[in-house]
């Protein structure tokens, strides 16, 4: 026994510390040795080593208890604080972790591992992450892990050159730098190589290093290449089935791709192995709500709707989706290999958990994963906040572009084209020139086309993502206007064969990116120059308060910035002023401009429809209310009014849909609504259904005379 102990201690004595020994075994994938080594550490006299030992064995609670003791025993050790902080990171307690990293820096302001730990905590898409990592390297230029992490950040930032450089720096410092090699292998895989020499080297160092495949999987996922991402996660798990974070990611991405059954299996397995990230828990909770959804199959689509609102939404969303598919099939000259699956969530947090894993991302309206699209339901947001129909056109464009480019499109291009498609379908759906965008134009913050990707991935100011959407959309407008739709198809082809943005522009637009930027800038300036020039004045007047704006001034402001349809738009202000003076015709003209400019306040549009109806212009009123339908479907009053207008114009089919929508919203006046539907059905010569409906009306209101008359008529 004594001999054995001595023997076991020998390797430890040969190297720097017993902890380093364990880490070396771990680094080389020597499972049994690693376990035995960590087990030995748990018997150490030093609480810090005991903590590391328990952690190495996966006994996180015991590790935490020992770290607590070590924290008291090693009052001046930044290492103890950083290590304990990392344990908190593993336990998803980022706040405690950050506190400990800061505490370490108080003890030693030049402690590089603390800066790296903070960088990892900030996450790759936060600019601070890179700054902190660089600072760690400044403090310790031979800090292998920091170089490895910087390589990863660079690849996240779509900069394979820098990533390669940093990875090689790490390898020059340590030939066994597994994470550096994982980044290099990922670059190979992303470039279409099916095998990578780096992978061979990795496996020589550590034959069970599944993390390398998981790293590649991560990069495929963030590049929207979900199918390949999933396959790499599978590879990672083949090498090491204990990689529960990879298993959870596999589950989450299977969920994104609509494979709920396998997703559930993987997530449950991960959860049962005590890996319980918020994303895993949310995804499992989300899967439990599956029973609340109804799946509808169309010729080229599958629509998933919450049962509570399926009756209302299906007659709108399903045909719209089929129309979009038919339009894009023609436009992109491509037939998708299978149906598009559209999932519509009435609860925004469910939608976000379904797509990102964590709630709290307020701005997202829709997300595409290959041929699966998830989006907010019209009921998920207050009326007027978004146009559900435009979201479908937008996301479906992604489905086509991702498919046609084999998911190799840069983000700026697919987003730009999707934004373009919204306005190509309906001019008033175009991305609005909001004050934030005008301000960016004014400050000349738009990015050259070769850098536009950064505007999406690493925004430098709060509204840059939104500005980048606008810019990318306008770029696609410009390309189509100047070079035609075929140029766009050509660019799609270029991306599909792994050409980058510069090459795609040169091959299809036959000019250098710099020349393209110049021309685009001049084109955009023509469209927005006047608004930009008057923006300061406009802002000043609006800040003074809308009640202080005179009619003459409002008219001028409207001319200066016609695209502004946000709160207190001059259209609405002027319409209000005209209405107060009894000039309903002028008020109507203003609101029609508001509508045609893309204004989407449901209340304002309803007001306009009322004015149009009052003036006897039922055709325009119908147009306005159809516009409301494209924005918000939860307004019973709109459906009933539109139904009546359509019925009066002889569109019985349209009226039936509107009245059915009103019924799906559980109207207050059940009898009247079913009676209206009966009239529409009768007009469509569907007498049997009409009779059924009138009987429903009379069941609610047996003495309702118009319905009684209709029943007698239908019973003759």
């Amino acid at each position, binding site marked *: 026994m004594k001999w054995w102990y001595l023997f076991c201690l020998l390797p430890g004595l040969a190297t720097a510390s017993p902890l380093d020994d364990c880490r070396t075994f771990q680094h080389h994938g020597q499972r049994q040795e690693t376990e035995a080594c960590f087990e030995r550490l748990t018997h150490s006299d030093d609480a810090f080593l005991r903590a590391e030992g328990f952690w190495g064995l996966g006994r996180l609670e015991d590790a935490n208890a020992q770290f607590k003791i070590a924290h008291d025993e090693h009052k001046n050790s930044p290492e103890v604080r950083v290590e304990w902080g990392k344990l908190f990171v593993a336990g998803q307690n980022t706040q405690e972790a950050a506190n400990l990293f800061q505490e370490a820096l108080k003890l030693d302001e030049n402690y590089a591992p603390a800066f790296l730990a903070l960088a990892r905590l900030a996450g790759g898409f936060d600019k601070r992450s890179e700054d902190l990592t660089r600072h760690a390297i400044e403090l310790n230029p031979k800090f292998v892990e920091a170089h490895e992490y910087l390589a990863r950040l660079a690849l996240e930032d779509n900069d394979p050159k820098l990533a390669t450089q940093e990875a090689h720096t790490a390898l020059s410092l340590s030939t066994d730098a597994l994470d550096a090699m994982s980044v290099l292998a990922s670059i190979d895989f992303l470039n279409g190589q099916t095998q990578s020499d780096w992978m061979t080297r990795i496996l020589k160092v550590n034959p069970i290093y599944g993390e390398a495949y998981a790293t590649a999987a991560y990069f495929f996922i963030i590049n929207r290449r979900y199918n390949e991402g999933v396959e790499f996660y599978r590879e990672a798990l083949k090498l090491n089935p204990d990689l529960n974070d990879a298993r959870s990611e596999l589950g989450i991405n299977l969920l994104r791709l609509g494979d709920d059954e396998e997703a559930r299996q993987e997530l449950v397995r991960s959860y049962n192995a005590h890996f319980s990230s918020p994303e895993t828990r949310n995804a499992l909770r989300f899967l439990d709500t599956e029973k609340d959804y109804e799946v509808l199959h169309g010729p080229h689509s599958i629509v998933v709707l919450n049962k509570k609102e399926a009756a209302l939404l299906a007659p709108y969303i399903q045909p719209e989706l089929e129309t979009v598919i038919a339009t894009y099939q023609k436009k992109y000259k491509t037939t998708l290999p299978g149906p598009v699956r559209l999932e519509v969530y009435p609860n925004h947090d469910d939608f976000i958990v379904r797509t990102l894993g964590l709630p709290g991302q307020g701005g997202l309206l829709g997300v595409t994963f290959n041929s699966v699209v998830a989006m907010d339901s019209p009921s998920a947001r207050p009326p007027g906040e978004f146009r559900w129909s435009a979201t479908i056109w937008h996301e479906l464009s992604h489905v086509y572009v991702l498919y046609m480019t084999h998911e190799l499109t840069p983000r700026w291009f697919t987003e730009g084209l999707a934004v373009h498609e919204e306005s190509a379908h309906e001019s008033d759906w175009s991305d609005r020139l909001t004050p934030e965008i005008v301000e960016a134009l004014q400050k000349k913050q738009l990015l050259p086309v070769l850098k536009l990707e950064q505007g999406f991935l690493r925004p430098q100011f709060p509204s840059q993502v939104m500005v980048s959407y606008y810019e990318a959309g306008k770029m696609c407008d410009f390309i189509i206007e100047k070079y035609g739709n075929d140029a766009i198809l050509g660019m799609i082809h270029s991306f599909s064969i792994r050409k980058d943005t510069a090459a795609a522009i040169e091959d299809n637009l036959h000019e250098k990116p710099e020349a393209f930027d110049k021309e685009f800038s001049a084109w955009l300036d023509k469209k927005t120059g006047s608004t930009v020039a008057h923006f300061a004045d406009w802002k000043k007047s609006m800040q003074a308060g809308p009640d202080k704006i005179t009619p003459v001034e409002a008219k001028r402001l409207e001319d200066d910035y016609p695209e502004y349809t946000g709160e207190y738009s001059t259209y609405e202000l002027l319409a209000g002023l005209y209405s107060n003076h009894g000039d309903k015709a002028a008020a109507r003209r203003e609101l029609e401009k508001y509508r045609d400019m893309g204004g989407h306040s449901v209340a304002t549009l309803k007001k306009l429809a009322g004015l149009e109806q009052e003036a006897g212009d039922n055709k325009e009123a119908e147009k306005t209310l159809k516009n409301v339908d494209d924005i918000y479907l939860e307004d019973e009053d709109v459906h009933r009014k539109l139904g009546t207008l359509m019925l009066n114009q002889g569109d019985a089919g349209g009226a039936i849909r509107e009245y059915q929508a009103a019924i799906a919203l559980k109207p207050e006046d059940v009898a009247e609504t079913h009676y209206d539907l009966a009239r529409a059905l009768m007009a469509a010569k569907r007498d049997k259904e009409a009779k059924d409906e009138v*009987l429903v009306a*009379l*069941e609610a*209101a047996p003495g309702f*005379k118009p319905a009684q*008359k209709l029943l*007698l008529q239908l019973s003759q």
Partner: protein
Amino acid sequence: MRLLSLFLTFAFTLPAANYYLIVAGLGGAPEYEKQFEQWASETERALQAGGPNVHVETLSGAKATRQQLSETLTKMASDVQPDDTFGLLMIGHGTFDGDNYKFNLPGPDITAGELATLLDRIPAKRQLVVNMTSASGASLPLLARKGRVVITATKSGNEKNLTVFPRYFLDALRDPEADTDKSGSLSALEAFRYTQRKTVNYFESEKLLATEHAMLDDTGSKDGARDPSATNGEGLAASAFPLIPPSTGPTVAASPEKQKLLARKEDLEAKIDRLKYQKAAMPEEEYKREMAQLLLDLARTQAEIDR
């Protein structure tokens, strides 16, 4: 046959009267005092619009004492006939101490048990109590009785906040949209559903946690229901309680033939109401067939009346 005809003639020539007593309890603060009195007087006006057969008395302010309330109910017990309808509408604050519900009045309060005793002396076969006070849910089990529709603003005595129910109940009496069966009259059930919907909308639109959940009991079950329906058996009597009677009722001048038609109409309407409450226990097809036939008969009868 002759007797039936005589009865019908009597029924239509001397229609039953509708008696109401509205009580606005102690406000406790001037703004509440004023608000309760205003709701009470407006409710009185809305009910009076029901026609000459509607008799409304209101007790509010200093007059709304327990003694006055007891005396008024005692007097009504002698005035009201069995075929009349009687309604007690309570506005104000209520309290519940875990054992007893009390309606807050100037001076001594009155308990739900005391109210029930007084109401039991009123001979009207169809009675309605609308207790719109806070904590009113606690009064439901004591007031509930077969033949009496009891509506409370809250589901229990633990909902103690000032209620918004009276505001919307008043709206129900005035808003033609509350008459969902388009009969030209407003039943207690229609008023309940309208008020309930508006109350729910109020809390939702104000993004407030709902502090009141209205209940209805008309079977004497003492449990009440938030959603009276054929499924839980609640609501049938409430649907037949005419809170606001039809504005144009049958006239003395109606010919015997028309009177027969009117009687047939009333009979069909009653059958339809009953059938609705048998729905849950019937095969769907059978229900649909019977309902369709009754509705068609009613439509034909109405057409003949209107001819």
